[in-house]
């Protein structure tokens, strides 16, 4: 027996399967000594050493190692280890280690450590390495009577230790039935409305492994270290067909998970969108943004014996394209996307719960209750008093430095928090105003019914009259109709305010049409103050993709409102021009006006909430030029308009900025939207 071997230095992978070898120190076999007083090693191999599995003739070697005989000072070569060699017909290759007379009791900690090490092996569900035989993977079963006594399938334990375990199969009508067992959610089910008619006898089992210890259900089997080793090599959803693995599925991104992540596809389609909308706190249009990497989904989809529609390619690298293959992909993605939406819901719940727990823990520390809106202030105050106490023990110059740095930091926190609170309460006010607006519009709509009734009554009266009187009455009914139509148009805009954001779906929205709608909303003021809004250079087919209609209208309303105020304040030559074009995959919308303009130094600041008039000249001049009753229409400037525009544009991965205006224009705003 050699103490150390150069074997692993010469060949660092196993000869048959090419598995990376571990334990380069050459003392692995001696570590068995730590586990028990006696070791029996039984190894079965062939002469050729390359054959594995059941063989016609096996050479079996059995050696007993009495570790108690290995006393300090003894020459290793003097210790007798009894052995036996025999030939076995029709036997299996492999090595067995039997450790008897356990040296010390296994603790739970030691057992957990063992499971985590073995988990990395259990994750090997089979793979292929160039130049080697196909690695069949490992099945590891642990029998530990002292630890809950049952036979443990370590791969199953591994699957159940991550954030969630996802299973799916098809019912007789071809609907997918998915089940997710996950941390913080328990067991959830869904039956798809969509059918997969080309699929039969398909079963999906996937572990959703998030690389965060907070999102693990069982840290005894799976540690962060184990997970980080395991995922790059064994992550992915493999395909097994009639019991055999089909390559390269699972090694490649066959489900286009990483592809979709790259595109930041947040919006699920069809019934999954509806499902996402039903979950409290979930923004359906962004519910897939937490989709994990393909390697974080560890499992298989099994295609059973009698599954039609799957035909292997001649080179055995995957299936030939067919409806069944396409539907298989859709089926697996349906299940994974559904679990992603549920995880999004879980994350949001956790964030809310975490903030409550943090608040409660903080309250315990300071020994008093704190209102939710005052948590940041109370925490900063507490930190201040603690820092003062601690800094007293520092030398004078050090103390001053620490206190000054701390004051700057807490000042920044307080002010930013105060600004956020102010914006939040203002937005709450606007939200409640929208409720009032909806009530108002509802009442006005019912009055419209009476207006229609009066018009119809007058029409009948007119029909019984002749000559001039008839014409007079018909003239009155015509005015009724115009007034009613105008009111209905304006009320149409208010209904967008009441949209239930959870039900509204981002969709393709044509820009020019919405400019026309917004122009109509400002018609009274633009006619009165002779403001020209020119949008000749907005092509009809400029379409913003995947935006709520209300969002695009909000952008246009806020931007045009600003421009209208500015041109009124400036005095003569009241022009606003909107143009649009496509550039590098984006819609570029330019809004120019002949208003007061903006100094370049204010180009950024003007987007800050509550900075309605950074140079102080807009509202001063507006006061001079605007009729008092028209103030209501253009608004007094909440200072939130451009901030809202920026938020919406950025949320849609666009940009908005003021640029130096072209000649003859005072201000130029550039918005880019996909």
């Amino acid at each position, binding site marked *: 027996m050699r103490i150390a071997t150069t074997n692993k230095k010469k060949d660092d992978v196993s000869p048959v399967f090419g598995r990376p070898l571990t334990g380069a120190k050459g003392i692995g076999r001696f570590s068995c000594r730590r586990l028990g007083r006696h070791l029996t090693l039984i190894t079965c191999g062939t002469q050729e050493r390359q054959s594995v599995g059941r063989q016609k003739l096996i050479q079996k070697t059995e050696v007993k190692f009495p570790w108690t005989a290995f006393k300090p000072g003894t020459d290793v070569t003097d210790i007798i280890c009894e052995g036996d060699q025999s030939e076995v017909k029709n036997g299996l290759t492999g090595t067995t280690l039997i450790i008897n007379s356990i040296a010390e009791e296994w603790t739970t900690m030691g057992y957990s450590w063992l499971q985590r090490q073995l988990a990395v092996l259990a994750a090997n569900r089979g793979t292929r390495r160039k130049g080697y035989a196909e690695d069949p993977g490992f099945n590891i079963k642990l029998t530990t009577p002292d630890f809950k006594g049952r036979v443990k399938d370590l791969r199953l334990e591994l699957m159940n230790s991550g954030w969630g375990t996802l299973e799916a199969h098809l019912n007789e009508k071809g609907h997918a039935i998915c089940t997710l067992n996950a941390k913080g959610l328990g067991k959830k089910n869904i039956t798809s409305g969509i059918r997969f008619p080309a699929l039969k006898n398909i079963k999906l089992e996937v572990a959703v492994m998030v690389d965060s210890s907070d999102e693990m259900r069982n840290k005894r089997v799976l540690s962060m270290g184990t997970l980080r080793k395991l995922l790059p090599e064994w992550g992915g959803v493999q395909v097994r067909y009639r019991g055999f693995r089909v390559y390269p599925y699972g090694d490649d991104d066959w489900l286009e998970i990483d592809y979709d992540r790259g595109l930041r596809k947040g919006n699920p389609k069809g019934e999954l969108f509806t499902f996402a909308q039903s979950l409290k706190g979930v923004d359906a249009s962004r519910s897939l943004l937490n989709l994990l990497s393909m390697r974080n989904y560890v499992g298989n989809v099994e295609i059973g014996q009698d599954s039609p529609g799957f035909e292997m390619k001649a080179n055995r690298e995957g299936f030939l394209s067919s409806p069944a293959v396409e539907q298989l992909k859709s089926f697996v993605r349906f299940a994974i996307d559904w679990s992603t939406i549920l995880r999004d819901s879980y994350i949001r719940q956790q964030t809310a719960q975490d903030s409550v727990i943090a608040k409660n823990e903080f309250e315990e520390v300071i020994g008093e209750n704190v209102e939710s809106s005052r948590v940041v202030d109370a925490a900063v105050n507490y930190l201040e008093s603690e820092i003062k106490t601690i800094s007293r023990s520092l030398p004078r110059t050090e103390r001053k430095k620490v206190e000054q740095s701390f004051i700057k930091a807490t000042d920044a926190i307080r002010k930013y928090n105060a600004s956020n609170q102010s914006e939040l309460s203002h937005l709450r006010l606007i939200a409640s105003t929208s409720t009032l607006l909806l009530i108002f519009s509802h009442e006005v709509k019912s009055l*419209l019914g009476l*207006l229609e009734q009066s*018009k119809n009554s007058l*029409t009948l009266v007119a029909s019984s009259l002749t000559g001039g009187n008839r014409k007079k009455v018909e003239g009155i009914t015509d005015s009724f109709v115009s007034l009613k139509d105008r009111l209905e148009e304006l009320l149409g805009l208010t209904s967008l305010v009441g949209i239930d954001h959870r039900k509204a779906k981002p969709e393709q929205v044509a820009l020019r049409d919405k400019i026309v709608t917004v122009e109509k909303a400002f018609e009274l003021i633009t006619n009165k103050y002779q403001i020209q809004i020119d949008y000749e250079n907005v092509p*009809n087919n400029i379409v913003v993709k995947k935006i709520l209609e209300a969002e695009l209208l909000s952008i246009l309303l806020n931007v045009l409102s600003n421009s209208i105020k500015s041109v009124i304040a400036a005095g003569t030559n009241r022009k606003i021009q909107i143009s649009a074009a496509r550039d590098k995959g984006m819609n570029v919308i330019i809004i120019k006006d002949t208003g007061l303009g903006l100094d370049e130094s204010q180009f950024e600041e003007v987007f800050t909430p509550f900075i309605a008039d950074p140079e102080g000249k807009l509202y001063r001049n507006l006061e001079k030029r605007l009729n008092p009753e028209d103030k209501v229409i253009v608004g007094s400037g909440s200072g939130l308009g451009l901030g809202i525009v920026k938020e919406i544009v950025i949320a849609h991965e666009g940009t908005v900025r003021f640029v130096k205006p072209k000649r003859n224009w005072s201000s130029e705003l550039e918005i880019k939207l996909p």
Partner: protein
Amino acid sequence: MTKKMQFIWIDDRSERATESSNLQERLNVKCQFKDVKGKDLNVVLGEILSSQEPDLILIDHKLENIKSGIFRTGSTAAATIRERWPECPIVCITGVDMNEVDSQQRSLYEEMYSISKISRYDNSLISIANSFKALRKKRPQTVEQMFKMFKAPKEDKERLKAVFPKELKENFSNNTIGREIFHWTKTTFINRPGFLYDRLWAATLLGIKQDSFSKVEAIFSEAKYDGIFSDDSNERWWKSKLLEILAENISEHNLPWEKGRKLQGLSKSDFSKCYATKADFPETVAFVDETKAAKRVQIKLNETIPHPNFEDLLFFDEIRMMKPAE
């Protein structure tokens, strides 16, 4: 003298009685206004159902001013009415935003109309009442009899047979067949372009602007749809007949939108242009975007994509949407 049609209007807003009598005069029908404000609707319905079945019922959707009971909406009342009169058409006249009414409640009405625009639906109300009456008087027993009610041209019959729903073909004896025929006729046969074209589609077929169609409309009077559920406020023309009449008037072998422009009375200013690119001869009609109230425009086929919210139907034109600029 023809007997006047009988309407019943059920409402909890007493002031609408005036509009009920306006309607009576405009449409030359007998309209009985049933004011249910402060009353038990169950009792009022009982009285109505014990009298003669009317030709049409108009009912308000939100019934907030009635005595508390099981009825809070017109749709619940409609369901009760149907138990006794399964084929009595019921139209909802309401002030609420129709988007707020869920689809299940909507399905209990034949139509929902806004009270603020009621006079625009005069023709539709007459059409619904007359058509249901005709169906009750002479219930079709076969598909051929149904097509007679459509007054379908010979060349359309085979295709119509293929698209006419199986559930209708096999259930002519069903006592709710009238409602189902109305539903399919309205939502598919009339509203989906294919067999019937509206003014915009007809104009596009002829290569002219929608407003210009009135200049040549008289030539196509034979093509006008006047079968069951036809509505003068929602006119349709048989596509097959439009093409036939066009061929009779213009003998050249060209595409219909090229031939249409040669009809008498038209000039260059009547010719249609593609909404997206201003190119000549837009071949189709498409929505400008996905929004609910999106307008439809004349447009080149290659400037459009299939509309994601509409499925394809055999023998009907594909519903399309303007393609975003590249």
